[in-house]
């Protein structure tokens, strides 16, 4: 019998905090809805979230999270707020995950002795197999051991230190933020957590399948930057890197050649396969006994998927993307950011739209060649156009534009390969007055650079009022 006016959810919000005792070698799994908060405090013992330890008696706040608090020694935690799901699990793959870390440590020690790069680790597996959680855990352990791994996110469906659609690499030598996943890229102010410095490229499509040629090119560029970084950064070189891959690449043989491309470009020598027997045997066939370009043997290791990994439905993923976009511009609950809106004339921006591969065949456009007169020729080689220069239109409203580091009329390859300055959001398009309202993270004129419009992430109507 429902009583009008009785707000049950409000009543549970103010419920007294609950103390959970978690036995050693088990974990407390919890899910928190977007828009509600759950506070967790470690009362005694030790606890970690994806490899990063909780400080005792500090309050950690989770929102829109699906996570697990693991303990190697047993612990007591105090939980305030309502979880959608919560339970304690004794069976976890953490022993093998930690052992992977120690095995990698051995490889790192050997690499340091030989003056080589530390292990390049690629994690493959279907969607929702826990690839990112595994990498976070291994990254946390590596940092705790004094290492400084480079983490490379090749999955444009989720952002790392950026928004979806981007591909990112960053060094993680300092503590990660247990509440925020990978943490936050720098802001103009101080940060209570050490910020991470990413290099960001734009893919702008949800799946490598949509444009495998472009995906492979950006991969090559990313791998080159990472390799260059290794050559100048001893700490990262000794630790190596972790590469997160899109689940779709593990979900069908058609895409194995893209996986193979990533593995080759990064000279991957450790391949961790999560959760799929068939994928494992496919990977063994493809890689086992092979050698990386460095002549190191490639290890292919199957790891169990954690029972705590839950399927994230499209509604959740969409919410997560919107949260990442909002946080990019407006910050999170720890630090509020002030982005900047401004009106710009259509003529003030140069926007490139990613050309769908299917349309390349029908397109006979020379790909903006007339703008490139002053540019050096592309070695006499003109590939198919990668982008199409577009006028702003109403269809662009609520989209994200990537701001590259290259001049507005650069060759397409340069635009494609450029790292990003960041993102702007098209809040409004006024076709009559030929004006755009743009939300930018930084105040001042939007940089006079080539802007790229992808289809990913999708439009986000209510980012700005």
């Amino acid at each position: 019998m429902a009583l009008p006016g009785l707000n049950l959810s409000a009543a549970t919000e103010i419920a007294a905090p609950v103390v959970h005792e978690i036995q050693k070698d088990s974990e407390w799994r919890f899910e928190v809805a977007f828009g509600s908060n759950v506070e967790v405090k470690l009362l005694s013992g030790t606890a970690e979230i994806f490899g990063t330890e909780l400080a005792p008696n500090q309050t950690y706040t989770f929102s829109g999270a699906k996570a697990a608090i693991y303990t190697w020694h047993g612990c007591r935690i105090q939980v305030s707020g309502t979880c959608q799901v919560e339970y304690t699990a004794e069976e976890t793959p953490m022993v093998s995950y930690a052992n992977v870390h120690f095995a990698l440590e051995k490889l790192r020690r050997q690499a340091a002795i030989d003056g080589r790069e530390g292990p390049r680790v690629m994690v493959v597996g279907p969607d929702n197999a826990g690839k990112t959680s595994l990498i976070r855990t291994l990254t946390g352990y590596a940092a705790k051991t004094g290492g400084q791994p480079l983490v490379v996110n090749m999955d444009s469906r989720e952002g790392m230190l950026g928004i979806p659609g981007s591909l990112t690499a960053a060094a993680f030598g300092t503590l990660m933020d247990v509440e925020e996943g990978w943490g936050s890229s720098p802001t103009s102010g101080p940060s209570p957590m050490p910020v991470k410095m990413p290099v960001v490229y734009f893919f702008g499509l949800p799946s490598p399948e949509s444009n495998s040629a472009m995906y492979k090119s950006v991969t090559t560029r990313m791998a080159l930057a990472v390799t260059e970084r290794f050559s100048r950064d001893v700490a990262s070189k000794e630790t190596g890197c972790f590469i997160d891959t899109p689940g779709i690449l593990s979900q069908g043989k058609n895409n194995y050649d893209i996986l193979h491309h990533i593995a080759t470009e990064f000279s991957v020598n450790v391949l961790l396969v999560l959760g799929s027997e068939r994928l494992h045997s496919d990977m063994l066939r493809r890689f086992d006994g092979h050698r990386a370009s460095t002549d190191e043997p490639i290890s292919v290791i199957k790891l169990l998927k954690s029972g705590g990994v839950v399927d994230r439905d499209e509604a959740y993923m969409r919410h997560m993307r919107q949260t990442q976009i909002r946080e990019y511009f407006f910050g999170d609950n720890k630090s509020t950011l002030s982005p900047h809106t401004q009106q710009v004339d259509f003529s003030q921006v140069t926007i490139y739209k990613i050309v769908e591969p299917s349309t390349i065949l029908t397109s006979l456009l020379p790909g903006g060649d007339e703008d490139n007169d002053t540019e050096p020729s592309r070695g006499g080689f003109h590939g198919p156009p990668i982008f199409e220069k577009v006028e702003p239109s109403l269809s662009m409203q609520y989209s994200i534009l990537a701001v590259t580091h290259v001049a507005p009329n650069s060759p397409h390859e340069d635009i494609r390969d450029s790292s990003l300055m960041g993102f702007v959001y098209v809040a409004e398009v006024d076709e009559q007055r030929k004006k755009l309202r743009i939300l930018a993270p930084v105040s001042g004129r939007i940089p006079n650079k080539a802007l790229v419009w992808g289809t990913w992430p999708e439009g986000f109507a209510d980012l700005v009022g």
Partner: protein
Amino acid sequence: MSSGLASDEVAEDYKNSLEDLTLNSRYEISNLTVIAKENTEHAMAISRVLENHIRTAPPNRKLPALYVLDSVVKNVGTPYTLFLGRNLYQTFMNAYTLVDNQIRKKLDEMLKTWKEPVPGSMDTRPVFPVEITRSIENALIKAKTAAVQQQHQQAKAQQEILHRGRSTATPPMHWRNTPTPPQSSTPFALPYGAHASGVRSGNNSNHNNNNNNNNSNGVTPSYGNHKQYPQQYPPTPLSQPGPYQQPTQTPDTLDTLNNDIANLIDVARAEFATNLYDQGVQTRLKALLDLQSILRSQKLPPEQIKLIRDQVAQLSLSSKPTPIPAPPVIKAPEPPQPPAPQPNGQQLGASLQSLFSSNALAELLASTARAQQKPTPPPVQSAFSTPQPQLPFAQPQVAAAPVPPVATENPLVASLRAAGLLPPANVLSTATPPALPLNPAVFPMPPIAPPTIPLMGTPPTQSATPARAALAEIENDVEMTTASLKIPRPKLISTLYEAQPSQCTSCGRRFPTTEEGRNKKARHLDWHFRVNQRLVDVVKRGQNRSWYLDEMEWINYKENDEGLNDTNSNGTAAAGSAEATSAKSKKDLKNQYIAAPSDPALANVSCPICQERFETVWHDGAQEWVWMDAVRVGGRTYHASCFAEATKDGRGGTPARDATPEPVLGKRKAEDGDLNALRARIKKENIP
């Protein structure tokens, strides 16, 4: 008010005044405080001078100088708290290392007041940020527990030299007669604090005199406040080191026991370091240390030794987060294993805690104190042959807890019972240990049930190396094979936890207890401190997401561990302080920075002297974008080097920047060159 003098002149004056400060003179301290207050624009210089003075002053003059520091931070506050806070750890610990125990007590008190707001102030924040005071406390606790052990070692060595029956009135090896004070490796080598007091009693009485005739204005409550912690200390006169008894027990039993206790102390200390405010751990550690000293100073009947030894052996097994040598002679009673590994770390932790409820310490102290007062029990000569007050965690309120009457058995046995180290006389062992360790009603505790699963899941190894050393060299036998990855390896896990026992309480980051680890942690805490200070400002300033680095910047980017680079040679770097007119090295100027303005109008200004723009770089220590080599003077922003040059000898001209750090354009070009090389490589690889 502003003296209009250059910083170095003010600093010189201040230095001279400090050198005159030989006594704890309230008048002089007030005077120095007033000078500091009137010259806040030279706060940095004054702070440096004060720090230097404290560092270089002879031990007996360090306390008055520290009182100046205390008075300045309490009465003037910022910016002195900022400048003096930065090196407070070194300043305080250096002094603490070199002074005698009397003065140490005063420093302890001073430290305590720094954790609280200034009395009577509207500001509710502590005098210094808690990260700073906590790092000091942490270091003190570790040093002190180490010192207690060292005392025992020294005492043992001394016994060997003096043999039984010889007078122990001679002070053991010490540093008092040598010109050099002890080095940091043996900071607390002075085994009997009171030995040093003879030399310094003159000073101490001066302090007392000052205390009597000062007209206190109440703002610096710690001066001359000689309130000690009498409850904490046994009434043994400190000037008489208790004679050590040569142990008469069979050596192997006692040695085993002593080893076990020493190991337990190691474990408890590591735990304590990570969990500084856990009363249970404190109590356990204290009880273990007390037990250690009791065992070393008293004769006990062999059967009692054996009883204690068996209990301790079980504790060793159960409390072991790190491998500890198993006593070969001990056969700990093992009950049948339950089918499922139910008893776990948590339960064991709870029962261990319950063994050492907060009252256990009180009971232990009280009963041993009673034993000392009572002349009757023959074996007890002096329960505490060493001064215990060094243990800061012997909180007065704990010691003052009501003491339940104890039966007339040997007070030592009673106290061991109380501490849970011996089974209670009349309570039958119950299956489940009490869940609430802090409930005084559950005292005395039932004995600990022998653990079926050691805390860390590994049996103790035969290795005789101390736990910590063993961790550093644990054999890593993990292979990248499915079979090898399945085997649990708690010893390796301990490299992520116990091997780095010193944990930052605000973010959870761990540090080893090595010299390097300590330095790292100090810098880390410093970083927290600076960031916290800036977070306060930023609320007013507003902030926004920054543009990302470009590829080449990222490739060349050097991640710094927080603040590793900006606290070394030049404390001014992190300060971003305005006035930089005094003679400084060029490097200092280059390291000077201000927060990069977020207002675009301000972001585009050039240096009025050289007309060049400022270079915006990410500063890891400050965790924000800054303009390096920049200084703000009278509302305008200059290159620090330009400004120093222009004002050096009164010329207002526009001298050339003879030491332009990096010609911005040139640097850009170089990078473009790199980038082109990179592109060339990519093109080459892309073309089949």
